[in-house]
């Protein structure tokens, strides 16, 4: 990589994000005309192996720094790492979006906190999870081969709460169908991008 290439990245913001947020961050960039924001993703499937996430993030940060990025935002919550992701981010001097997971920052931290107790038996969907219901849930959980396991995974849940980033009737229909297949009640909340948008715009403003 040439010196001019690394210099060119110095004034840009790189968002190292979960693959679950890629489309949404691109939409925020487009909407805000944040032309100096770049995005790179870590596979969403690491949510099934959260112990691997801190290492993957550290490698991505170091690669980005080698490419000349001075301002980096981690497009993650804690995401089941039990503080291990934050330890890496602190050591690398990188900030992340506040909150435990995307379900919290899509709703906004205050709204999430207010509803947390009532949502104990709610299983959250997002646009990404509705679009990828089969590849992200049905197949990895073995429900295509063993639908009898639905009760093992979802037996204590009472409803699907679809946190919708976009107002899309097709996704609404697919989410409702998935909820019915799982035997759960269904609720849709149109959240938009929630705190994610403010976090990206804020970091973009600092770069």
């Amino acid at each position, binding site marked *: 990589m040439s010196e001019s290439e690394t210099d060119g990245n110095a004034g840009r913001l790189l968002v190292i994000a979960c693959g679950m947020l890629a489309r949404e961050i691109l939409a925020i960039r487009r909407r805000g005309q944040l032309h100096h924001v770049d995005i790179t993703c870590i596979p969403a499937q690491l949510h099934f192996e*959260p112990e691997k996430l801190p290492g993957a993030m550290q490698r991505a940060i170091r690669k980005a720094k080698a490419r000349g990025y001075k301002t980096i935002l981690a497009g993650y*919550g*804690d*995401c*089941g*790492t*039990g*503080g*291990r992701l934050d330890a890496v981010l602190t050591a690398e001097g990188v900030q992340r979006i506040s909150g*435990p*997971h995307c379900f919290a920052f899509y709703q906004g931290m205050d709204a999430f906190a207010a509803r*947390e*107790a009532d949502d*104990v*038996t709610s299983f959250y969907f997002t646009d990404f999870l509705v679009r990828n219901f089969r590849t992200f849930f049905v197949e*990895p*959980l*073995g*429900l295509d*081969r*063993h639908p009898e*396991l639905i009760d*093992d*995974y979802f037996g*204590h*849940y009472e409803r699907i709460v679809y946190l919708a980033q976009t107002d899309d009737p097709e996704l609404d229909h697919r989410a409702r169908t998935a909820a019915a297949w799982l035997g759960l009640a269904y609720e849709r909340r149109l959240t938009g991008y929630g705190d994610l948008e403010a976090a990206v715009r804020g970091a973009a403003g600092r770069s």
Partner: protein
Amino acid sequence: MADDEIILSELSDDDLVAQMHNDLYDGLKDEIEEGTRILLARGWTPYDVLTKALVEGMRIVGIDFRDGILFVPEVLLSANAMKAGMAILRPLLAQTGAPKLGKMLIGTVKGDIHDIGKNLVGMMMEGAGFEVIDIGINNPVEKYLEALEAEKADILGMSALLTTTMPYMKVVIDAMKEKGIRDDYIVLVGGAPLNEEFSKAVGADGYCRDAAVAVETARELMRRKHNQLNQA
């Protein structure tokens, strides 16, 4: 009938036990129930069926899960098959007075309804000879304290899957300290977002990354507890 179909009742004891390990690995519930009944009919003690056929089979499943060869769906199928075998053995074990290593109270913390890991731990602990009292999911501190007192347990096991709920373990342990009963119990914690450091920070006696580790940790800490009592 296919030529290669295995008739469980025609197998020798050794071959049947080996076949049951395979059937557990493949999550074949009906076959495990049948194998369990055959061994009992041949005069095996319920304890031997449990330990040699079921627990040993699940131990192999656990190793392959840890090594990334098996995944959660397969382990769940295996666990459900073992559960079916244990349902047959449990009343018989109670009658025959199988050895008991201790009593464990186990439950998922308040705000958390996930129980796959907890159930696996409970089952393997029972298989290893512990009496297990499962208080289920979403347990507030009061429920843990009441159950500990009522059950006279040796071990408290707490589980959490969520980053947002795992700090509740400290609430429970702090309440035990306040009541002056913390040292009466071995406290084990587990769940995907936890680690050793967290376990120490909340004041638990041990972090168990999986069911096999939970069994080994419980055995070791119970042994130490007995040694301390004997020296006292």
